[in-house]
């Protein structure tokens, strides 16, 4: 797999806007963005309202995912192209989420909504309708999703990639300065984790850096691309962006996204935590 299998550019999207087997999906943190305007024929998925279970602190189940995609008019053999704001944070998250439930043909629009806007391409307010489908999902692909115990048991053997800002990593801050809500109890990082902020994987315009730049970015910080890796951040959407870079662009074979991330880990009783700018050594439990 290479970047041409997983990333599309704006010209490709424009050429496929009327292709019924291509579904453009906008996923934003700021849900008002789609309502203002969006790429013609794009549908919206709300990462909170649509993708999170209403009772369990978890994703929606397989049955609900099938209902959601059927209602949205997405067919199993459609190519789903994600894009959105925040440099494609939530678009990458939705891509990973769809992959988790087995959707085969997925793409990310390189540069997301920002690059589309900076290139002054057309945005419309009209909302498309898609006829309902009968979508069938698989069970979750756990080879790309990590849980709390995977992280705890993996300290010292698995490569951990913490993609938060240096101040969150070191323990100076519990959350990004402009997102003070949802803080864990403790500050710091998982011992042995390397810190490569997600933003370093992208250019100013939101597109991903080149393969060589990406490879160097991670290996320079001591990440062994031959090992099993787990990426995490605060709630798993910045780390989806990095999961995409490692797994989908660089084709690193075993990369999982830990969506519980620091919000969960930093609130666990009696787990090892490291502070400061160094990864830190495994700690005796």
């Amino acid at each position: 797999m290479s970047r041409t299998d997983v990333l599309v550019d704006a010209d490709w999207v424009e050429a496929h806007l009327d292709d019924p087997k291509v579904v453009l999906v906008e996923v934003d943190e700021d849900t008002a963005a789609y309502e203002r305007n969006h790429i013609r024929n794009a549908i919206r998925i709300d990462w909170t309202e649509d993708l999170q279970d209403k009772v369990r602190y978890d994703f929606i189940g397989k049955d609900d995912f099938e209902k959601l995609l059927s209602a949205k008019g997405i067919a199993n053999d459609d190519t789903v192209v994600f894009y959105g704001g925040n440099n494609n944070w939530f678009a990458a998250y939705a891509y990973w989420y769809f992959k988790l439930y087995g959707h085969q043909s997925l793409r990310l629009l390189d540069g997301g909504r920002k690059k589309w806007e900076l290139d002054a391409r057309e945005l419309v307010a009209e909302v498309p309708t898609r006829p309902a489908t009968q979508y069938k999902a698989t069970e979750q692909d756990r080879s790309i999703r990590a849980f709390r115990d995977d992280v705890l048991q993996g300290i010292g053997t698995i490569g951990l990639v913490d993609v938060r800002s240096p101040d969150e990593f070191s323990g100076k801050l519990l959350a990004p300065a402009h997102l003070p809500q949802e803080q864990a109890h403790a500050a710091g990082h998982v011992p042995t984790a390397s810190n490569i902020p997600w933003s370093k994987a992208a250019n100013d315009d939101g597109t991903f850096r080149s393969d060589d730049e990406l490879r160097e970015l991670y290996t320079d910080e001591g990440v062994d691309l031959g090992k099993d890796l787990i990426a995490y951040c605060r709630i798993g959407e910045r780390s989806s962006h990095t999961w995409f870079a490692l797994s989908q662009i660089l084709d690193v074979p075993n990369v999982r996204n830990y969506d519980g991330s620091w919000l969960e880990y930093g609130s666990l009783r009696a787990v090892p935590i490291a502070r400061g700018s160094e990864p830190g050594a495994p700690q005796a439990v």
Partner: protein
Amino acid sequence: MAKETVIQGTVARDGEPVGGAYVRLLDSTGEFTAEVPTSATGQFRFFAAPGTWTVRTLAPGATVDRTVVASQGEVAEVDVALPA
């Protein structure tokens, strides 16, 4: 609000506010810290820490950098004029 260190301002072109531009806050080593789109009235705001920052504005056809020094508990105003 009184204790916050704030960097805020307006992006304009030919005196007209530019909504939907992207403003990035870079730290003193040039590393990305945060990014916000400007409002319909061209405004942006960051909560930052004291120190020297670069405010980089991206808009169709233009990229403009401004250096700003933020002080503890104060609001640093930055007005960004895009080339016509």
